[in-house]
């Protein structure tokens, strides 16, 4: 077992890792930027190291600072959380070179799955359905037009190294292709320093369904069922739930087993997520996230399996203790991401939280690093809390989420709680008739 784990992250996920360490009896080391000195992850970790100034590039993203912090504190493992360095193969590689266990898959798998067009190719080989489209990057505008005609419009252009919606363009006809291609290419270049694009069939009303994967170092890979994350805005998820209201048991089995097949093909280790677009009984591999996800509590709630503890044990070399057939879904779970932002204009709203009262009672979980008096800094992501509910049915779960949102008091800054309440009261949402377009449509009304 590890003696000491350095948590290379901040905010709620850093706390989440610290809880897991405490429950396993492992010491934890928090790293922090100077403005995060009063953060809860610093307070609750056994040790802490200030690694740089507020700017992420000078602190949470600075590999030498984090490795040095691990060295001076004698940490034998690093948990990267999500975001920051969590999917950086170079970081995982350096950890390995420094004899520090990176809690996640191997650098090779991170690199392979981190390149979206390569990942797609690989999954195709593994027999995982992918969206019809270019086989890897499209070399020219002409090639883009020819493939688009082949798979029929609309199509979507995406940056090979992309994420977060940057470098994406939906193209409905041949006429639009030229402008879209050039725009997407320059966005990709500006954002990722890589202008290569790929192209695929654009689904009009897809659902975002993802499968949680868990693997050990001995080739044992299981899935912990799916999550549906269709409620999103510009590819930023807002509400996630499990199980997906769209899937029949047969489809669930099919999509989850397909995900396991894909993960086995790349000899996946540790926790990861296979993201699919689902439309009308068909599902297509989109990408794989080679890390813990923000929405992992949803899966923890329906399976009663602690994913962070599983990650640590797996990285430590423990053999998988779960058998696929023993994984049971209990009830329904849902997560609302509470962001410090204007609920309808989405402008970030950093500032000091003057009152912070979290909801309690049955079936309510809150993952947060915020507290009364803390300052939400403009330097980092606007997620301030994850509110997660569980209940026997989806309907009960929504009622519980509603009352929890209504009794979550955050004063001093604006949050998106009013937006969540609006979504929860929507008739289509209540019926489970959602797609990745849901929020856009709700907001345009």
């Amino acid at each position: 077992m590890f003696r000491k784990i350095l948590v290379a992250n901040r905010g709620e996920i850093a706390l989440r890792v610290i809880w897991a360490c405490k429950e396993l009896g492992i010491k934890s080391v928090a790293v922090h930027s100077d403005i995060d000195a009063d953060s809860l992850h610093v307070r609750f970790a056994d040790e802490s190291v200030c690694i740089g100034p507020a700017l992420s590039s000078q602190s949470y993203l600075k590999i030498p600072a984090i490795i040095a912090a691990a060295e001076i504190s004698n940490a034998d493992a690093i948990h990267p959380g999500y975001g920051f360095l969590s999917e950086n193969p170079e970081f995982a590689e350096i950890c390995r070179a420094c004899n520090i266990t990176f809690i996640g898959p191997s650098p090779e798998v991170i690199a392979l799955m981190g390149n979206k067009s390569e990942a797609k190719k690989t999954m195709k080989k593994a027999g995982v359905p992918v969206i019809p489209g270019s086989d890897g990057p499209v070399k020219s505008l002409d090639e883009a037009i020819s493939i688009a005609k082949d798979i029929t419009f609309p199509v979507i252009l995406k940056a090979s190294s992309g994420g977060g919606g940057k470098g994406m363009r939906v193209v409905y006809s041949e006429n639009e292709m030229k402008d879209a291609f050039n725009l997407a290419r320059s966005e990709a270049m500006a954002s990722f320093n890589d202008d290569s694009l790929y192209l695929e069939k654009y689904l009009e009303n897809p659902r975002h369904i993802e499968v949680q994967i868990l693997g050990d170092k001995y080739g044992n890979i299981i899935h912990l069922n799916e999550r549906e994350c269709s409620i999103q805005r510009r590819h930023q998820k807002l509400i996630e739930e499990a199980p997906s209201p769209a899937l029949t048991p047969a489809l669930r089995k099919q999509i989850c087993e397909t995900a396991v097949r894909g993960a086995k093909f790349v000899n996946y280790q540790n926790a990861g997520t296979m993201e699919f677009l689902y439309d009308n009984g068909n599902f297509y591999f989109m990408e794989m996230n080679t890390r813990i996800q923000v929405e992992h509590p949803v899966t923890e709630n329906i399976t009663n399996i602690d994913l962070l503890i599983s990650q640590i044990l797996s990285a430590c070399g423990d053999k998988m203790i779960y058998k696929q057939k023993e994984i049971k879904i209990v009830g329904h779970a849902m997560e609302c991401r509470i962001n410090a932002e204007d609920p309808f204009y989405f402008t970030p709203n950093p500032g000091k939280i003057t009152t912070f009262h979290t909801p309690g009672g049955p079936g309510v979980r809150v993952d947060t690093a915020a507290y009364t008096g803390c300052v939400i800094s403009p330097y980092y992501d606007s997620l301030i809390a994850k509110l997660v509910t569980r209940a026997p049915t989806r309907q009960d779960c929504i009622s519980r989420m509603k009352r929890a949102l209504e009794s979550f008091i955050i004063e001093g800054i604006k949050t998106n709680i009013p937006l969540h309440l609006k979504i929860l009261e929507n008739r289509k949402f209540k019926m489970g008739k959602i797609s990745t377009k849901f929020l856009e449509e709700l907001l345009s009304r």
Partner: protein
Amino acid sequence: MVEKNQNDKGLNLDKIKKLIEMLERSSLEEIEVSYKDIHLKLKKPQSVNPVIHTSPVVPATSVLERESVQTNSEIAKVEEKMTEIKSTDFEVKSPMVGTFYRAPAPNAEPFVKVGDIVKKGQTLCIIEAMKLMNEIESEVDGKVLEIRVQNAEPVEYGETIMIIDTGI
């Protein structure tokens, strides 16, 4: 709270240093802070300037901020009113929860009207609770200045139902 195993980010030396700087720059005389089991008091030499008190170091934010906002405007309202009202005004407060009645029966005359002169012990109204009619008697002599509750409306414990001017 429990001595946690983690490093205490409470009142470390850096913070004390900053507090000293703050005190020096301010016109205050003294800063006293309690944090968990730490108590800190910083004091400047006696000065001639008037002593200024700023009590809560930690912002005493109430969960009920919205309500306190309302309260402020309510206070403003009350204050405005208060300027008209003399210190001799007596607030008749409901001694129980129930339904307020101005008259002994639906078609009867009300016990009192605004402007009436009332004597101590005189019935002002009835509050019904659990089918019991409780007559509320005046505790003072004076003139009815205001009746705050409408007939047949519910009243809470402690709610002001009338104002009687005892300064006449």
